């Protein structure tokens, strides 16, 4: 089979490519260029920077496969960076990796896959495809710690039959061993962490640099529920729900960020107990399979969350499509820091069912 492999320069996607070559597929490697490298000072460690492209190219040379750098700068800016900045300015905490998957990896690259007459698109995601039923399903990887299915909830059903996740059945240590065996240059390379386009600075600094200066307004820090003014801040984008440190204040109680209001530029802080909630509203949901309305489902409210049981309490079945775009769920147990802008992702056992954005 002819497979287009998205290679970031990291060890996961490199081993994915190597496995496919070993299995006898006709493999084409590609890196998405999402940022002008002259701009970003960061070397490696922040995903697709130019040193990482060199690593990907080295691996491709080692595997004797064609390798291309695909320019996605414009799409990346409109689909990932701009919404990321806007989200923070609206007082939310975004998950840009999901947008990258939605619009770039599994949209733009799928198109490239068709253009180059390939049968599959493969990535180094920790996820698995199961083909036992009528339509393929995505299930969590063998490595539950590294599992990345959280970021895949927006995938369209039509795309699943073209996907391969060659390392989904492996655990990270096994992947590194394979990389050594294959003689890949990045076998010992550190995993990239954080947001790939943010580089050296932190996300707040990035937002400050890329937002319209008029939208970066200072404001008040107030205590919930009384409304007492506790201090000032330099922009709500510096704060995220549930944050404890960095409040810039000296207070005898431990206070947490409870919400940020873009209309009044107010950051509300309060006692930890206010961070807990059971109900959750979701919008722009995407479903890979039909969710049962009368059964428990496991929901992750952020990547690092372990997942908790919940039930759907509001949501209509759309004719022929299953659940619609907006639903409400209720957790069995109160959950800490349900953060607007994050995604809530649904699982039935190990199967990825879909998810939506937390309002």
């Amino acid at each position, binding site marked *: 089979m002819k497979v287009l492999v998205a290679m970031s320069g990291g060890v996961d996607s490199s081993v994915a490519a*190597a496995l496919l*070559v*070993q299995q*006898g597929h*006709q493999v*084409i490697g590609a890196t998405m*260029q999402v940022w*002008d*490298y*002259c701009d970003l000072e960061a070397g490696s460690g922040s995903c697709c920077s*130019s040193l990482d*492209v060199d690593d990907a190219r080295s691996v491709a040379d*080692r*595997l*004797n*496969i*064609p390798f*291309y*750098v*695909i*320019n996605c*700068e414009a799409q990346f800016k409109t689909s990932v960076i701009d919404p990321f900045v806007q989200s923070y300015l609206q007082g939310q905490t975004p998950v840009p990796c999901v947008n990258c998957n939605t619009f770039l990896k599994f949209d733009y690259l799928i*198109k*490239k896959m*068709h*253009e*180059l*007459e390939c049968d599959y698109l493969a990535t180094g995601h920790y996820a698995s495809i199961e083909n036992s039923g009528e339509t393929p399903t995505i299930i969590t990887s063998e490595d539950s710690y590294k599992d990345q299915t959280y970021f895949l909830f927006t995938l369209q059903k039509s795309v699943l039959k073209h996907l391969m996740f060659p390392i989904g059945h492996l655990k990270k240590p*096994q992947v590194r061993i*394979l990389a050594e*065996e*294959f*003689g890949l240059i990045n076998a010992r390379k550190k995993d990239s962490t954080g947001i790939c386009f943010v580089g050296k600075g932190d996300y707040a600094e990035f937002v400050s640099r890329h937002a319209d200066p008029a939208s970066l307004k200072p404001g008040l820090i107030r205590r919930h529920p009384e409304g007492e003014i506790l201090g000032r801040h330099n922009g709500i984008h510096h704060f995220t729900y549930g944050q404890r440190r960095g409040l810039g204040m000296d207070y005898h109680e431990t206070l947490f960020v409870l919400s940020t209001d873009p209309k009044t530029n107010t950051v509300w802080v309060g006692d930890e107990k206010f961070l807990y909630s059971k109900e959750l509203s979701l919008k722009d949901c995407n479903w890979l399979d039909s969710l049962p309305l009368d059964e428990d489902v496991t929901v992750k409210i952020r990547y690092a969350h372990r997942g908790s049981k919940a039930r759907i309490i509001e949501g209509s079945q759309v004719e022929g499509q299953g659940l619609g775009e907006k639903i409400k769920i209720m957790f069995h147990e109160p959950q800490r820091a349900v953060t607007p802008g994050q995604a809530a992702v649904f699982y039935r056992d190990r199967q990825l069912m879909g998810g939506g954005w937390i309002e």
Partner: protein
Amino acid sequence: MSSTNISSTLTSLQSTSKIYLDHNATTPLGEAARQALLNHIDEFGNPSSIHWAGRIPKMVLREARNAVAKSLNVQPLEIVFTGSASESNNLILKGVVDQLRAQGKASNTVPKILTSTVEHPSVLYTLEQIKGIEVLKVPVDRSGTLDMNFYSKALESKAVHLVSIMTANNETGSVFPIGKLGKMAHEGGALFHTDAVQALGKMELDLPRWNIDFASFSAHKFYCLKGVGVAYIKRGLELPSLIHGGGQERSRRAGTENVLGIATLGAMCGSLSAELVNEKSKYMQELRNHMESRIEKEIQGIDFHCRTQPRTPNTSHFSVQGINGESLLMALDLKGFAVSTGAACSGGSTEPSPVLLAMGFSKEEAQSSLRVSLGWRTTLEEIDRYVTVLGSTIRHLREVNL
């Protein structure tokens, strides 16, 4: 999973036959060049050495210089070997400015350089880097025509010190009237330089006929090894060195000479004659024209560029409607065809070519453009195969993009 040495289990690259149609980017070794390389491959000596080891290398240099000079109808003394045409351009542009300053000609006035908007980056970007000069750029329109009004007006005040206009453009193949431009430059009191990289091997070159003072050439664009350039400096003109050090090239360019590379250039130039270059030009032109007419007949939505003006006989440049140029290039590569797009490379991305944008092409046109450049050894069979595959590939890409 057993321990695997993947290179032993690798399936080799798809065994598609490869067809090279990107001669404006670089060329394979010519027959004479290959012979010269093999003949001299063990001549390791330093040409500057007094002893036996330097004798033949020194002779190789001398003979190559004579051959290059003869093929351009100039004196051997006027030929300086550099490491590349980019270096030649740097040597000439920076050297002239330094010389002007040293001679005090421009002590009160800022050195004024007249160039075009479509020059190679080693001219345009170099000019940007030189401090304290004024640069005027003659526009070139999308048909490949240089704005002669602008050119003559710019020279009117006799304030221009140096003109630098390329002989032929590497992207569209457009050829500029160097003889006329050189004459006008001199009448305007300016020195004249031409980047003639794309001209060697594609047209007759008789530099004295052209009224020029400086010219740049590249060996690897003419079926020779990479790592050798030529700077033609008219006798009597003084030019400070760019690279200082030992006294090589009569102290005009330091650094132990690339003997093997220069040997290949000498051999190719030695085999060159007006008859040969005209024969090859005619050959490439016929193939190129045949290719264009088949494309016109068989593929919809192709817009050819710069055909109404003189162009190099081997180059074809056109935009393809309804597709992404990058995808077309990749798809063609996977099928074994090497061609180029209208995009330059910067920081790894594919920005639309500044030359095409300067000529008035839109970003979309620039990003969906293809450049095909034939060589002396391109065959009819290769061209015919290319057109057939180009057609099916474009049709497929258009379908996917619907």
